[in-house]
């Protein structure tokens, strides 16, 4: 199956060697061909919607317009910020006041999907069950969604914005133990990590602390900004909190790759800033630990 694909800027940078590469690999393994939107550019992200509203709608709107030139029904967007901005633009450009913007949309607009959302449809879950060769037994995780894929629900279309289940469904099929916790959609403050790191240390520390309290050994995310925020600054945040958290932050796509025996999974996970392989090693989930019987099944 062919779909349109809008990577967004950070998938060429800080989220390239783990998130982007894992998405490409799992898409291939599930026979989904990603066709990149031609001549794509930045959606404007936090900066545009904060201080230049018009540009925020026009930049994101133009991406939707560029993507409708491809002959595919679905547009996959890995970054929840881009996802949110694209959906917001579609909304604004359909309204009565749309003529104030210098970008117009045609009638044919693709369905805009987050990646995790796309992989959690009943059909995809069925395919995941078929492909799992190494269930993530004994891996205790909490799923963390952050803000942008959920809120506001009339923009995102999220079915349960206070208690989403998208990643839970996927991780359950992968054989992991998914724990319930109260901070699934609480903000991690990613847009402030450069300008107000003190605030971020409070917000992210709270998340680590609660994840540990409910007994999780790792956090699973579907957002590269949350990932950056939770993975890159863990040592500094531990210093602020005077506490060791030692929490690997995995992308859902890396864990699909790992459980389905897709080549590259260990390499993607090795690209995190917080060391994330030794937990999987201890649980016997890395290749070097695969018992001959399991390998025979694979």
């Amino acid at each position: 199956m062919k779909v349109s694909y809008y990577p967004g800027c950070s998938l060429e940078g800080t989220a390239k060697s783990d998130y982007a590469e894992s998405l490409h690999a799992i898409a291939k393994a599930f026979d989904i061909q990603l066709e990149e939107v031609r001549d794509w550019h930045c959606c404007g992200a936090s900066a545009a919607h904060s201080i230049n509203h018009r540009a925020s709608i026009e930049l994101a709107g133009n991406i939707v317009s560029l993507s409708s030139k491809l002959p595919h029904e679905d547009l996959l967007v890995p970054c929840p910020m881009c996802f949110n901005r694209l959906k917001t633009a579609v909304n604004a450009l359909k309204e009565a006041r749309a003529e104030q913007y210098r970008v117009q949309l045609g009638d044919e607009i693709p369905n805009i999907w987050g990646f995790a959302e796309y992989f959690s449809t009943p059909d995809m879950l069925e395919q995941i069950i078929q492909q799992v060769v190494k269930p993530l037994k004994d891996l205790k995780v909490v799923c963390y969604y952050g803000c942008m894929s959920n809120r506001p629900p009339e923009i995102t279309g999220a079915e349960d914005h206070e208690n989403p289940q998208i990643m839970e469904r996927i991780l359950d099929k992968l054989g992991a133990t998914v724990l319930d916790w109260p901070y699934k959609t609480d903000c991690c403050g990613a847009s402030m990590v450069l300008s107000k790191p003190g605030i971020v240390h409070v917000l992210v520390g709270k998340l680590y602390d609660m994840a540990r309290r409910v007994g999780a050994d790792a956090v699973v995310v579907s957002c590269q900004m949350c990932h950056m925020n939770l993975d890159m600054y863990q040592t500094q945040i531990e210093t602020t909190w005077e506490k060791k958290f030692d929490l690997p932050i995995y992308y859902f796509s890396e864990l699909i790759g790992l459980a389905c025996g897709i080549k590259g999974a260990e390499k993607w996970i090795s690209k995190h800033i917080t060391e994330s392989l030794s937990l999987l090693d201890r649980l016997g989930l890395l290749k070097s630990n695969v018992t001959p019987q399991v390998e025979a099944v694979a």
Partner: protein
Amino acid sequence: MESALKPDFQFLDEVESHGPFEAAACYQCRKCTNGCPVTFAMDLYPDQVIRKVILGQKDDVLRCSTIWVCATCETCTTRCPNDVKIAEIMDCLKEMAARQNIPVPQPQARILHQTFLKNIRRHGRVFEGELMAEYLITSGQLMPKFKDGTLMDDMKLGINLLRKGKMPVIPKIHKGRKFVSEILKD
């Protein structure tokens, strides 16, 4: 004696002309403030910002740090029982304050947004390494960060990102750049 309050009753209309945000529908239930994750760093609570918009306290809301502390997590807008677009009002106030160059106690958030837009105007896509460096210089954080040692942490992180293939050293050349620089011209 001059009155401390100088209400500008046009202000609500001025804000709403960028909406509709339904600010006037606010009945001060404070659900926005109770769910906000960053009130601990605010000088006005979100419900107070909305009230002050209605009461024409323009200076208070354009000069407060709250609008720049707001992370736009959209919890307030999502939960508001009267459909007031609180996070969107915060954005609107940020834009007004930025366009009028109103001084803020901690201008880092505004400088970051401005640096970000300059960066994408230049390259069409965010060039993260350059953005971080340029932001450190223009926000005046370089010396304080050098002195408190956090600059060293940042440099170590930068090297780590390079090593792990997460920090390209040359920006990508692509055709989308022209559109972005056109849109951000004014």
